[in-house]
């Protein structure tokens, strides 16, 4: 299949008696932003390391960019860019020295070197810090420099392991803007994160928990398919009184802006019941709608179920 960038089947990795990755199968299409979500220790890094040819799988097969992850790991390393979870550039080298080093390692052609370096400096907003020791850069800059060094050679597939952990919200947003840019230019991006709010940035997602994939799909598919409960949005004039009235009847709800949200088993039976309770309390209801749950609701529910 020419439009598949990453494909693994029943990938498993054990460390002694501990199964870090358990029968993981997934496919990533070319040019996709694929999000690999899960709490810390779920097996995200172990999976990404196996895909990048840094770790041998105990069982299972897979290809990255058409190369076998077991037999052709060195070929894979020519095709990909990888940014590890821990910052792993040389912090005793300056920004430019790090860029030059990875430029040399990735064999960036001589005629392209200067242009690529300038591109990274611009992208990471480091033009005036070229000769700063990497050690002294703020977190967000380090992260962008690490990304820059990983894509100096314009890889077709990019693996990012928790690229935004420990970075402030503005830097995170900027970082995702860069990922979008790369994806638009045709790069496949495989990114792990434990920030649920970042899941919406991805084209497709897989949720990994205790080494197993427990859900997969686009953010919308996940919201629709895997949320067994419904969320009602209740628009009323007096939300505080409404909240009181519902609580007295044993109905859990919460204020969301000027409206109320309630998680219910079935929206079609719960909606009339809510309307009745509120009207009996003398509160006029403008609308009760079933709304899409946030991804965070979905993941919490999925993890609780599994």
């Amino acid at each position, binding site marked *: 299949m020419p439009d598949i960038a990453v494909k693994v089947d029943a990938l498993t990795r054990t*460390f002694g008696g501990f199964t870090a990755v358990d029968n993981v199968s997934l496919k990533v299409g070319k040019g996709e932003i694929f999000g690999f979500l899960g709490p810390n220790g779920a097996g995200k890094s172990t999976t990404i*390391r196996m895909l*990048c*040819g*840094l*770790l*041998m799988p105990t069982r299972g097969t897979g290809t990255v960019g058409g190369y076998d992850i077991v037999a052709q*790991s*060195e070929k894979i*390393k*020519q095709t*990909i860019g*990888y*940014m*590890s979870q*821990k*910052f*792993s*550039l*040389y*912090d*005793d*080298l300056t920004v430019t*020295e790090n860029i*030059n*080093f*990875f*430029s*040399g*390692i*990735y*064999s960036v052609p001589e005629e392209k070197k200067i242009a690529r370096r300038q591109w990274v400096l611009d992208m990471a907003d480091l033009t005036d810090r070229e000769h700063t020791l990497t050690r002294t850069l703020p977190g967000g800059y380090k992260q962008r420099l690490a990304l820059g*060094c*990983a894509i100096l050679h314009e890889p077709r597939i990019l693996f990012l392991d928790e690229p935004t952990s420990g970075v402030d919200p503005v830097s995170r947003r900027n970082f995702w803007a860069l990922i979008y840019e790369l994806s638009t230019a045709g790069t496949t991006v495989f990114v792990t994160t434990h920030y649920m709010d970042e899941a919406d940035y991805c084209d497709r997602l897989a949720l990994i928990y205790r080494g197993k994939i427990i859900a997969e799909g686009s953010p919308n598919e996940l919201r629709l398919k895997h949320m067994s409960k419904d969320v009602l949005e209740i628009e009323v004039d007096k939300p505080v009184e409404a909240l009181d009235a519902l609580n007295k009847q044993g109905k859990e709800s919460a204020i969301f802006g000027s409206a109320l949200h309630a998680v219910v088993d079935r929206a079609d039976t719960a909606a009339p019941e809510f309307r009745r309770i509120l009207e009996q309390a003398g509160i006029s209801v403008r609308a009760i709608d079933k709304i899409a749950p946030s991804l965070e609701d979905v993941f919490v529910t999925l993890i609780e179920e599994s």
Partner: protein
Amino acid sequence: MRILRIKAIAVKELIQIRRDPLSLAMAFLMPVMLLFIFAYAITLDVNQLTTVVYDRDHSSVSRGLIGELGSSGYFTVVRHATKHGDIDAYLDSGKARVAISIPSDFAKDIHAGRTAQLQIIVDGSDSNTAAIALGYIQAFAGSYAQRLSGQKGPPAVDARVRVWYNSELKSRYFIIPGLIAVIMVVIAALLTSLTFAREWERGTMEQLISTPVKTPELVLGKLIPYFLIAFFDVSISVLTATTLFGVPLRGSIFLLAVLTSFFLFGGLGLGMVISIITKAQLVASQIAMVATFLPAFLLSGFMFAISNMPVPLQVLTRIIPARYYVTVVKGIFLKESGLRFLVVEALFLAVFGIFIFIVANKKFKKKIV
């Protein structure tokens, strides 16, 4: 293999060494410092032996003997004893290493043509010094007696001793070239023992092994800067030896440079293999130290002659690179040895270097765990 990748790694290593004061000190100060410390500490020459003299003769002959003894440079008379107990006290306390007791009829016996007695007591707790001191005194007393009695007829045997390669028998001449070799064996392994381990410990290795860099490129790229540094160290050490210590360099500098290069390839490679296997800086440097220092000191022929060792140890010395490099440096310094005499050493060092390079490449895996 791509030259540009090797170059990128070599440049990166050089920058890192330049920015790290500890690496710099180890690379540039330690070898010469060790050379000075050991050159002064290990001297097999015996000078200014502290001596106590008990002269019961009080003759011009006995006073002459004592005077010549003091001016010979080998003995310093620290005490003229007045009773025999003084000798015990001085030797026991370590204030003197040698005691010379001259009996009361010393001059009378000499003038009468009888054999004169001279009692010499040497502190044998340092047997090396004792043996050398004894030799000096016997030679000294012999020549003194001969001069006093005057030459009467030719001696039965006229032994004309000539010492080759080190005619002045200065221990410094043979210690310092060997010392340079021993120090470099240790320094070479120490220098590179940190390289791979540091990258594993700092986490930079994970990034590096995700790139298309090939193992031989990585090994060579890391080797080259340390090769240049170690070569510089040898040059400075040789220069120090010839200028400050006045050790003559009789053989070819070119040959020394070539064979040093052979040796450095394996010596530096050994440190790298240790670094690759241990993945931890502290452990790596300690192993590098123990694995090179002890064999280089004890089994290289530097301190103890290999021919005097028990046979199993002699066999063991054959696989110790230090042995060959010590022979090379000593040979070129003292004997003016040409390649003709150092073929075995050259071959061993070359083969060892290639062997270690292969091991380093086999042992390094571009994988985590």
